[in-house]
C-alpha cells in the first residue's frame, strides 16, 4: 500500500525489490505502521552533506552538524578537482531522503533527521576524530561512518588513543547515557584479500560493523571476510548488477540524484537507517541492545560459498556475511519488545608470555588459556558477546601469519587471515583481533589460539611473544538467551507493533555538552570588525559634536549667553544630510518669554528629546554656517519659527 511519487523510488530495489522479491531490506511493512525514524537523528561523518538539496533540506538537522575541516557549523561539501565530495550526501540520502517530493529517492528512515560532520575533506588527526565521534552527542543518536584505514590489504590501523577514548566515551555518555550507535562499513579490500580484523574501527566492540551483499545475495568482489562483522545488507555488485539509488550533490557534475552508489559505504547507511527505525519504537535501547538485536534477528540465507556455522547458542555466522542479512521488519519488531541486556561484564586474562616460534604450515603453534568459574565470579560473566585477543608477534613478513581462535565450544574464528600483499616486517605490536562468532556461548572453558606461518620457508621464523584474552558478555545464561530468542520469535508477527503497546522507557541521563567554542573564529572576527567600526564612528561622531559645540560656544552670540539654534530643516533631516541631536535646553520664545513644558514629567528647565514631539524639535546642530551666524545675519529659512532653543 505504500506509494511514493519520487521518480526513482521504483528503482530503489533495496527498499522494495519487485524483480526479485525478498532481496530487499523488508522495510515497507514497517513504514505502513508509521515507523519512519521520527524523533531520531542520524549523523553522517564524512566529506560533508549538501543539506540544501531538495531531498535532504526538510530533514536536515543543523544542530547536530559541524564542519571540522573548516571549523564552522555548516558541513556543506566543497567542490574538488576529482568531483569526489559527494560521498557524504549520497550516504545521507540513503538514510533520510524525503519522500513524496517528486524528487529522486526515498530514505530508509525518511522520518528521521539527518546531520553531517565534515571531517574527511582535509587533514585528519586523532584529536579531530575524537571530536567528531562525540560531536553533538546528545543530539545525534547514530553516527554513520562509511570510511576507515586503507583497504589495500597491507594496512593495520584503527582509532588511536583519542579516537578510542571518544568511542568509549560515546557509548558511555552519548544519547543520554544509552550510548551513541557507531555504524561502520567493513571495508572494500576484498580484491586484496583484506580482512576487517586489521581495521580497528571495524573490529571494535563499540561499533556495528556492516558488510555488503549484492542484489543476488552474493558477496561482492570488494567485500571482505571478517570474524568481527555483525551483519550485511544490500549494495552494488559487479557491473551487471544494480547499485543503490540515492540523493547526490548538485555541485559540479552532480544532478541531485544518482543510481551508482555502491561499496560497503552504501551498506552501512542502510543499517544506520534501520537502527533509526528501531530507536523510534524503543528510544532507550542501549548500544549493546542494538548489537544483540542484530545478532538475534539477522537471517542466514542460501549461499554455497559462505561458511555458515551455527554456534552453541544457536546463532549462525559466516565470515562472509556475519550473522546474515539485516531485516528491517525483524529488527523493529524485536526492538519493540526488547528489554535491556544486563550490564557489560568483562574478563581480562593476564598477559601470557610465550616467546614461542611459529612453525611453517601445516604445523601450527597452539597456546591455551583456561577461564575458570572463579575467574568469572567477580564479574558474573556467563555468556559471551565479543571475544578479543591482543597479540605481540615478531615476523619478517606479517602477511604470512594466520591466527585462529577457538572458543570453549570449539567454534573457530579466523581472526588473522593471511594477506599476500602485506610484507610489513614489524609484525604485530599489541594488536587486538576480535570475533563475534561465539556470541551467546558460555564463557567458561578453554580458549585456544592457533598461529601458523603460511609463507615461504626461506624467511626467518616468527615468534609469538605474548598474548592476552579479553572476554565481553553479560550475566545472561544460555537459558536466558534461548528465552529471548523465543520472545522475539513470538513478536515477529507484528502483533506488538502498534501504538497501544509500549514498554516503559527510562528517561535517560541529562549530560551537558561541552560548548566552549560556540563562537567560531569567523564569527569572532566579524564581531570584532563591527565593534571596531562602531567604536570608530562613535568616537568620530562624538568629536564632531564636541568640536561643533565648542565652535558655537566660542562664537560671540554664545559668549553673550544666548546661543541661537536655528530651526532644523526637516527636508534635510529626512534626506539624512543633517545630524539629529537635540541639546538639553529650555525653550524660549524669541520675545523672551519662557515656554513651560506641558509634560509634568519633564524636569524643570531641561527638556530632553523624549519630551519633545517630533514636529516640535528645534534642531540645535546642523551646518556650520548656521551656527556661526548671529540671528540678524542668518538665512531666513533658518529662522522660520518664532521659537528658538536658547542654551
Amino acid at each position, binding site marked *: 500500500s505504500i506509494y511514493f511519487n519520487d521518480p526513482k523510488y521504483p528503482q530503489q530495489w533495496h527498499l522494495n525489490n519487485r524483480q526479485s522479491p525478498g532481496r530487499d531490506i523488508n522495510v515497507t511493512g514497517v513504514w505502513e505502521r508509521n515507523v519512519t525514524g521520527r524523533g531520531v537523528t542520524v549523523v553522517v561523518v*564524512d*566529506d560533508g552533506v549538501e543539506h540544501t538539496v531538495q531531498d535532504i533540506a526538510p530533514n536536515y538537522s543543523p544542530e547536530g552538524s*559541524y564542519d*571540522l575541516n573548516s*571549523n564552522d557549523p555548516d558541513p556543506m561539501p566543497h567542490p574538488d578537482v576529482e568531483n*569526489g565530495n559527494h*560521498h557524504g550526501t549520497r550516504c545521507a540520502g540513503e538514510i533520510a531522503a524525503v519522500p513524496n517530493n517528486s524528487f529522486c529517492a526515498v530514505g530508509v528512515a525518511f522520518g528521521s533527521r539527518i546531520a553531517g560532520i565534515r571531517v*574527511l575533506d*582535509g*587533514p*585528519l*588527526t*586523532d*584529536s*579531530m*576524530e*575524537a*571530536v*567528531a*565521534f*562525540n*560531536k553533538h*552527542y546528545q543530539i545525534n543518536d547514530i553516527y554513520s561512518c*562509511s*570510511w*576507515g*584505514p*586503507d*583497504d589495500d590489504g597491507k*594496512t593495520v*590501523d584503527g582509532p*588511536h*588513543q*583519542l579516537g578510542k*577514548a*571518544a568511542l568509549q*566515551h560515546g557509548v558511555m*555518555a552519548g544519547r543520554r547515557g544509552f550510548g551513541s550507535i557507531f555504524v561502520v*562499513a567493513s*571495508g*572494500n579490500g576484498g580484491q586484496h584479500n583484506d580482512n576487517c580484523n586489521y581495521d580497528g574501527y571495524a573490529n571494535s566492540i563499540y561499533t556495528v560493523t556492516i558488510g555488503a551483499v549484492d542484489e543476488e545475495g552474493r558477496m561482492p568482489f570488494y567485500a571482505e571476510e571478517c570474524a568481527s562483522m555483525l551483519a550485511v545488507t544490500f549494495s552494488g555488485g559487479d557491473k551487471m548488477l544494480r547499485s543503490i539509488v540515492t540523493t547526490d550533490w548538485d555541485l559540479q557534475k552532480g544532478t541531485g540524484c544518482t543510481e551508482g552508489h555502491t*561499496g*560497503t*559505504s552504501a551498506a*552501512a547507511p542502510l543499517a544506520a537507517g534501520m537502527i533509526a527505525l528501531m530507536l523510534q519504537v524503543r528510544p532507550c535501547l542501549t548500544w549493546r541492545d542494538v548489537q544483540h538485536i542484530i545478532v538475534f534477528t539477522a537471517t542466514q540465507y542460501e549461499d554455497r560459498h559462505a561458511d555458515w556455522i551455527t554456534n552453541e547458542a544457536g546463532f549462525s555466522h559466516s565470515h562472509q556475511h556475519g550473522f546474515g542479512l539485516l531485516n528491517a521488519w525483524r529488527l523493529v519488531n524485536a526492538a519493540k519488545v526488547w528489554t535491556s541486556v544486563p550490564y557489560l561484564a568483562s574478563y581480562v586474562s593476564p598477559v601470557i608470555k610465550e616467546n614461542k616460534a611459529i612453525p611453517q604450515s601445516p604445523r601450527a603453534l597452539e597456546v591455551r588459556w583456561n577461564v575458570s568459574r572463579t575467574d568469572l565470579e567477580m564479574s558474573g560473566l556467563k555468556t559471551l558477546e565479543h571475544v578479543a585477543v591482543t597479540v605481540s608477534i615478531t615476523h619478517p613478513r606479517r602477511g604470512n601469519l594466520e591466527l585462529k581462535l577457538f572458543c570453549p565450544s570449539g567454534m573457530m574464528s579466523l581472526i588473522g587471515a593471511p594477506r599476500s600483499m602485506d610484507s610489513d616486517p614489524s609484525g604485530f605490536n599489541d594488536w587486538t583481533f576480535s570475533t563475534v562468532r561465539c556470541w551467546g556461548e558460555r564463557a567458561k572453558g578453554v580458549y585456544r589460539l592457533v598461529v601458523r606461518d603460511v609463507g615461504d620457508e626461506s624467511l626467518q621464523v616468527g615468534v609469538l611473544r605474548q598474548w592476552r584474552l579479553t572476554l565481553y558478555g553479560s550475566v545472561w545464561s544460555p537459558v536466558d538467551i534461548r528465552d529471548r530468542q523465543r520472545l522475539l520469535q513470538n513478536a515477529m508477527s507484528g502483533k506488538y507493533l502498534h501504538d497501544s503497546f509500549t514498554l516503559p522507557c527510562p528517561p535517560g541521563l541529562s549530560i551537558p*555538552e*561541552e560548548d*566552549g*567554542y560556540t*563562537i*567560531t*573564529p569567523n564569527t*569572532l*572576527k566579524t564581531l*570584532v570588525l563591527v565593534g571596531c567600526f562602531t567604536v570608530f564612528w562613535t568616537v568620530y561622531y562624538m568629536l564632531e559634536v564636541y568640536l561643533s559645540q565648542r565652535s558655537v560656544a566660542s562664537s560671540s552670540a554664545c559668549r553673550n549667553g544666548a546661543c541661537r539654534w536655528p530651526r532644523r530643516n526637516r527636508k534635510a533631516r529626512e534626506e539624512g544630510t543633517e545630524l539629529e541631536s537635540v541639546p538639553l535646553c529650555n525653550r524660549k520664545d524669541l520675545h523672551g518669554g519662557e515656554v513651560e513644558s506641558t509634560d509634568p514629567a519633564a524636569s524643570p528647565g531641561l527638556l530632553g528629546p523624549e519630551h519633545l514631539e517630533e514636529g516640535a524639535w528645534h534642531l540645535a546642530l546642523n551646518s556650520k554656517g548656521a551656527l556661526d551666524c548671529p540671528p540678524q545675519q542668518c538665512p531666513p529659512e533658518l529662522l522660520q519659527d518664532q521659537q528658538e532653543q536658547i542654551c
Partner: protein
Amino acid sequence: LAEAGGPEAQWPGGLSWAVHLHSREGEQEEKTMERRADALAQAAGLVNTGRIGELRGHYLFVQPAGRKPAMEVEAARRQAEAVLASHADVHWHSEQRLLRRTKR
C-alpha cells in the same frame, strides 16, 4: 583569533600535541583543569587550544602561530617533548600526526 578556534580549528600545518592530564583528587572544576593545562602548555612553549571534544582532561596544545625555520621547529618539538614527557601533571601525551582514511 586562531587560538580561540579551539581543537576543532586544527592543523594549520604546525606541530600539535594531545595531552591527558592527571586529574587531582577533589578536582571537579573544569576551569581549574583548564588553568593547569594553560600553565603546562606555556611551560612547553605551546598554546592550549582547549579541551578535545568531550574528553575530560584531554587538551590540544599547538605551536604558537607564525612561520619558523625548520631548525627552530625541530628545537621547539624537542623542547615540547622533553617538558611533556617529564611533567608530573601529564598522564599521557602524543604528537598529532596525519591519519590516512579512505571512503568506502
